[in-house]
């Protein structure tokens, strides 16, 4: 799982400057956020339920635009990115959604292979990679079934495998261990750590204190819309 570093020499993969977010006419969910995600860094994003972790990840993912402030991704200001450039950026970001977002009509194998398929790769080139990864997350014998028959933890692992399959520059994982048992959670954490070692920046949003206690990393803590950073 060899990783290339950012060729353009940009120091910061993601940077937020005074970012504020408000849904519709509601209260400000996030206010005055300023932080950076450096290349090859590892951080936990935490905070109580409803604090805005998922919203923050969506801002990083460019699937939401901030009410105010600047969001830069790969050195580009988010609002200046043209639609045609979007796919290129998205291909460098792997995401694990809190609600998995697997496609129910495709098999687990096809779901995991989807990022490769949309990049136009040939099935024979990636089949073995996908199988290996699925084996590793413990879905080796579930890969031919469709997501609706998977258990909660199995879905989560499939979602993680899909995010990892193309070795992204940044991995954004939302509550990636909420549905798995502690040993498996540790196993998944180790997978993320290894990915980080090979050059990917990892952002893990989680409530799981025991998970965070297992690896000493930067912590971004959201509270009442404010961000505190513990390096």
């Amino acid at each position: 799982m060899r990783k290339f570093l950012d060729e353009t020499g940009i120091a910061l993969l993601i940077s937020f400057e005074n970012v504020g977010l408000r849904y519709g006419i509601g209260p400000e969910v996030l206010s005055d956020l300023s932080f950076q995600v450096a290349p090859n860094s590892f951080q936990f994003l935490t905070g109580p339920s409803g604090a805005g972790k998922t919203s923050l990840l969506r801002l990083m993912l460019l699937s939401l635009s901030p009410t105010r402030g600047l969001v830069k991704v790969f050195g580009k200001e988010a609002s200046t990115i043209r639609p045609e450039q979007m796919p290129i950026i998205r291909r460098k970001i792997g995401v694990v959604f809190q609600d998995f977002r697997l496609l129910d009509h495709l098999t687990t194998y096809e779901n995991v292979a989807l990022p490769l398929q949309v990049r136009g790769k040939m099935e024979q080139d990636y089949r073995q990679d996908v199988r290996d990864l699925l084996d590793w997350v413990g879905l080796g014998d579930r890969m031919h079934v469709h997501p609706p028959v998977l258990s909660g933890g199995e879905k989560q692992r499939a979602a993680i495998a899909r995010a990892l399959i193309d070795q992204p520059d940044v991995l954004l994982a939302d509550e990636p261990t909420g549905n798995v048992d502690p040993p498996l959670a540790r196993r998944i954490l180790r997978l993320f750590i290894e990915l980080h070692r090979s050059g990917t920046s990892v952002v893990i949003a989680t409530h799981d204190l025991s998970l965070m206690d297992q690896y000493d990393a930067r912590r971004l803590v959201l509270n009442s819309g404010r961000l505190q950073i513990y390096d």
Partner: protein
Amino acid sequence: MTDKEKPSKSATKTATPAAKAPVKPKRQPKPLRSGQSIVPRESVASTALIFVIGIMTFLACLTLGAVSMVNTSAAKWQNDISREVTIQIRPFDDLEMTKAIRDASNIALQFSGVSKVTALNDAETARLLEPWLGAGLQLDELPVPRLLRVTLADGAKPDFVKMREQLEAQVPGSTLDDHRTWVDRLTTMALTMVGIGSTVFLLMMAATVTTVIFATRGAMAGNKDVVDVLHFVGADSKFISGQFQKHFLILGLKGAACGALGAIILFVILGIWSSSSLATPEGDQISALFGTFSLSWSGYFWMIIVLIMVAILTAVTSSITVRRQVNNLQNYRK
């Protein structure tokens, strides 16, 4: 990802890594691929859409078939009628009928397109008058007008106005009947039918397009998850709309094929039924009024054209709708 390291045994009683938990019997290898395209083939909107497209195509083909049949019948009648005109020469006391007949034929024959002029003999005229004057009529006893049948070459349209003028000037008591009333009436009727048919046809096509737009929007809404996921894994809008386009072209083809086939089968059955029932008096009446129910080959050909048109229309319409919507999604500020 080469190190298949085992997570250390947990201290709790619950822990065993799932990857090795259930002892499973060896099974047949199952297919990895679902055989599904990325846009799910069997969604709710699909069935409904195939249905709508099928029905619309069916009705469009029926309309087309009806128009084509009317057209054929009308053309046949019109042709039958307009291949002949009639010159009538009313007997005047001082008129020498034989000479008048000769003069009139000569005048008519001067016009290009007139291929033959036959004077109806006494027996033929008598037959025409039989309903009024009874059988066994002696024509030479009576001041009955004589009729000349002017046969025209196929498709020829001699200048009847001039012919009428010349006849009236040179052969007193003669009148030219070019069946204009009938021809006009038939032309009007055929044009009206074709007009109504075409309007209905266009209405149907418009309805089909609208339906497809609605259905595409619906399908897009129904497959918003799919579009979202495709986005997040880095698909570009060409890839996404390509998936939908393929999907809708297939839908359109399926629906249109069902509809057109249905119509063709119906016409074939009608044709067989009408040719078998034409022997009966009712069949005779019907065919006298409506022509036969058998569709010409060109009719079937046009149905195939409709089929292809509907399929293409579906694909194009949905493609435009999809591309617009995907671009909206693709936009950063959504």
